[in-house]
């Protein structure tokens, strides 16, 4: 039997250094469960500290791997740790850490189950980190489910609130539906190419000239499956309700980290697997991008709840992020630009959006509301929070010197670098949308700076230390990257997925 090559099995070569970040997070999860089992009700606060420390420790091997700078390939190319993966793993860890900071007081004071909460949060982060390395349809799918299933539960964490249950259920049903579509698309792609490895799929698809309809079907289904995850229009309908109903720290996690994971999946399949078939996915991405940003912005204009507004703003931002992919197939140079601009946007988006949610959580501690009107006159009693929020909103609107401008500039840059009419038209669509978007960002600013306090209660807001720390981190990133974008591009400069192209 052993001589038969089909059954020959040798242990895969495990590069423990490359796996170290994942191992650290996994160990932290186990520690969390064990500590939760054996500690009394009163010392449950330890959970958030353990989760936070675990994530910080996981950053160490990422730093050493980045310093080492060697691309590590495992499992026949299904799992790759390169610069691209490291930058994104760092993003997920940082975003996870900030979410832990945002959750600390919210979860502790809300009488929720802390040990389980952080365990699920970490397992979702783990899924994202795997996603950054996954170069194989199956490992991408496993990573995606590892991201999503804990997130379904987290969204419904406020068990007694009907809206939280609705949030969780809606998210779950739509997520499962998306997974089914995705799997169907994957099965078609596998059927055509005979491989689940993205690099091999790329080689096969590029050489196929016939079977155009079935290839189109496969690619479109896979991409639509991910479009649900990144809440691209018209697959966005779950996002606002889920965001509004879920606990706010979880919302920030879904809006930033989970969405980024969806984009990472799209980047992986698009640049490694489907790159040769840009004739199929470029038009799809163009339409998705234009539709997503326009619809997201227009609906955001009408929102009266800050979280819902940020949800629709997040949808619009997803449209901006999709935009470079609409021209990514023009040439390898443009493809590289597009990939980098998406990564840059994801990094900056994480910083500014998490910051905005941090302010919302801080303000809600006093007002117990997320209505836009409850932000009235914030400047008169919480000037520091107002200035922070102003920085984040200007960043989201893409106005220098807050970092968002550079993210938008990168998007514009890759659209213009394609040099095609469609690229320029989409750039103008993005430009017009940026103006529309300021309509609602500006309204919130106006409410904070220029309106009266609705109930006349001007007692200052007491912001807990963990939230202050989260704000310091996010403001620092937003300003530093805005003033010195070179610090950021230093890390994203070498990011590429083309080394795997055959």
């Amino acid at each position, binding site marked *: 039997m052993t001589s038969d090559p089909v059954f020959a099995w040798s242990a895969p070569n495990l590069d423990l250094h490359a796996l170290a970040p994942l191992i650290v997070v996994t160990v932290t999860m186990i520690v969390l469960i064990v500590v939760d089992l054996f500690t009394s009700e009163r010392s449950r606060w330890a959970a958030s500290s353990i989760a936070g420390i675990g994530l910080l420790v996981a950053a160490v091997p990422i730093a050493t791997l980045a310093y080492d700078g060697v691309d590590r390939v495992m499992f026949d190319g299904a799992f790759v740790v390169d610069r691209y993966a490291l930058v994104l793993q760092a993003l997920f860890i940082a975003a996870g850490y900030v979410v832990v900071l945002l959750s600390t007081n919210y979860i502790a004071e809300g009488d929720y189950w802390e040990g389980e909460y952080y365990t699920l949060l970490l397992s979702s982060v783990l899924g994202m980190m795997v996603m950054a390395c996954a170069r194989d349809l199956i490992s991408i799918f496993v990573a995606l489910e590892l991201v999503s299933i804990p997130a379904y539960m987290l969204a419904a964490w406020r068990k007694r609130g009907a809206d939280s249950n609705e949030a969780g259920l809606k998210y779950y049903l739509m997520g499962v539906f998306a997974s089914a579509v995705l799997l169907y698309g994957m099965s078609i792609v596998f059927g055509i190419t005979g491989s689940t490895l993205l690099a091999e799929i790329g080689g096969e698809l590029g050489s196929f000239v016939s079977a155009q309809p079935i290839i189109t079907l496969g690619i479109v289904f896979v991409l639509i499956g991910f479009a649900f995850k990144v809440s691209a229009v018209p697959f966005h309908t779950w996002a606002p309700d889920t965001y509004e109903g879920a606990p706010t720290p979880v919302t920030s996690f879904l809006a930033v980290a989970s969405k980024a994971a969806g984009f990472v999946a799209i980047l992986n399949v698009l640049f490694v697997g489907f790159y040769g078939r840009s004739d199929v996915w470029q038009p799809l991405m163009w339409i998705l991008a234009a539709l997503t940003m326009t619809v997201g912005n227009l609906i955001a204009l009408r929102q009266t709840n800050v979280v819902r507004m940020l949800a629709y703003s997040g949808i619009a931002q997803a449209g901006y992020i999709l935009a470079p992919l609409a021209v990514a197939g023009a040439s390898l140079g443009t493809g590289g630009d597009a990939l980098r601009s998406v990564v840059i946007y994801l990094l900056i988006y994480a910083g500014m959006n998490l910051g905005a949610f941090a302010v919302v959580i801080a303000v809600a501690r006093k007002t117990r509301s997320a209505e836009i009107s409850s932000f009235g006159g914030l400047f008169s009693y919480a000037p520091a929070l107002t200035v922070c929020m102003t920085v984040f909103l200007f960043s989201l609107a893409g106005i220098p010197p807050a970092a968002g*401008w550079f993210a938008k500039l990168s998007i*514009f840059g890759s659209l*213009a670098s394609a040099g095609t009419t469609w690229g320029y038209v989409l750039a103008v669509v993005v430009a*017009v949308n940026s103006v529309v978007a*300021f309509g609602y960002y*500006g309204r919130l600013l106006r409410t904070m700076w220029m309106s009266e306090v609705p109930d006349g209660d001007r007692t200052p807001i007491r912001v807990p230390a963990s939230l202050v720390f989260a704000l310091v981190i996010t403001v620092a990133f937003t300003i530093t990257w805005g003033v010195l*974008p070179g610090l950021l*591009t230093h890390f994203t400069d070498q990011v590429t997925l083309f080394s795997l192209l055959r």
Partner: protein
Amino acid sequence: MKDFLNSWGISLAVFLPLVGATAMLVVPKAQEQFHKVVALVTSLAVGVVGILLMTNFDYDASGKLQFVVDAAWIPMINARYIVGIDGISLPLIALTLLVVPLCIIYSWNHFPEPRNPKAFLILVLILETGMIGTFVAQDLILFFVFFEVVLLPMYFLIGVWGGEKRQYASLKFFLYTLFGSALMIVAFLALYFLSDEIMVGGRMMHSFDMRLLPELATGISAGAALWIFGGMFMGFGIKVPMFPFHTWLPDAHTQAPTVGSVILAAVLLKLGTYGFIRIAIPILPGAAEKWAPVIGLLAVIGIIYGALCCLAQTDMKRLIAFSSVSHMGFVMLGIATLTDFGFQAAIFGMVAHGLITGMLFFVAGSTKERYHTLDISRLGGMLKQIPHMGWILGFSVMASLGLPGLAGFWGEFPAILAAYDPAPGLNVAFFRVLMVVAALGTVLAAGYLLWLYQRVGFGVPKEEFENDPHIHDVSFTEWVAWTPMLVLIVVLGFFPNIIFKVTDGAVANVTAAVNWMGG
């Protein structure tokens, strides 16, 4: 000293206001005196740096960029921190450095509701950084960043400290300008990718360097250049503002606090016209030539339309705002001729308009403070009741209508004259028609301004204000804030060469690019 200025002078002038603002940020807002003093000292210190730069400026080589700093900033896209001053930017920087401290002095005891001098002055200082930065930036991305930084403080100045409809006005101001600058950045990027590459550190890269782009952009096809110029036209034209994009201006001016109006009129509008002279025309002279008739036509429509609107206004501040539309029309007409003479007139017009309209807004603000209204029909007899204010208003009105011997004349008259003989390649007959219509605009200007003065200055005070104890003549801080501007209006009126000599060499570079293209 010279070495220090060469390497740090400009950066110091740009970022010193931010240092002051940071210092103010950490002190509680109850310490009003501290905030006022720090803001004033900071703006004066910036002024001193500016004076040092100006005294060390080589006026014989005003066409050459001086005090240039060129450092890496965003290596990935080869955007660099390049700053420098030449004869085009020097007068505008001087104007900015003058106006900001005067505004701070003027606000000393005049903080509009809801007061909060700390926030107000921090915003003014951030505004100063943005304005100076825009005038010194020599890299398109750096320029864009400063151009946008200006927006934020002005949005808050109008929105928080403005009049009754402040929220509407501030948002309108912001959305208009944002729309323009969003298209402008797309145009910049198209320019970046379509222009030739240069060797940077061993690899070929595109460049945002405004010094190199005129040469690198020669390869761009005429069609693409027209589109790119169009994008820039939207960005700069809205800021100027040109007809038909001017509708944000009357609202913003009317609702803004006095200091906001003054800075808006004196400096912010110039960012647009400066952009045309500095970026759009020298880099894309071919497209500029095709766009020139459109610009000229819109400029003249703006002159006449603005003047007619002035005649219909009942609010003094709104009238001055529309007169800005009209006056900036002359500046744009000068630019549209694409001649040496036209550009010089435009730059002079920018400075003159900044001083004169700034002065008018100061007077309007002080009038509002005394009478609590700017309704022209309710005002009257200013010369009788508060003669000094009345005379200052009269002086500013005369300057604004372009009386020879005062600064306003040298902005309008040469612009009209330049249209008689536009750059080769432009339709001479068309521009002469524009010239005649623009000249009619000056008559209208005299009409609405003198009529304003007649209604506000002459006659006897209305009954409701006759014995109002609040109405007092020009106060000490007002004298301090206004004297330099009044003196400069006269000095520039008699010695226009102070500016013409500086701009001469620099403008020649711009026209050289145009003529090279046209010839």
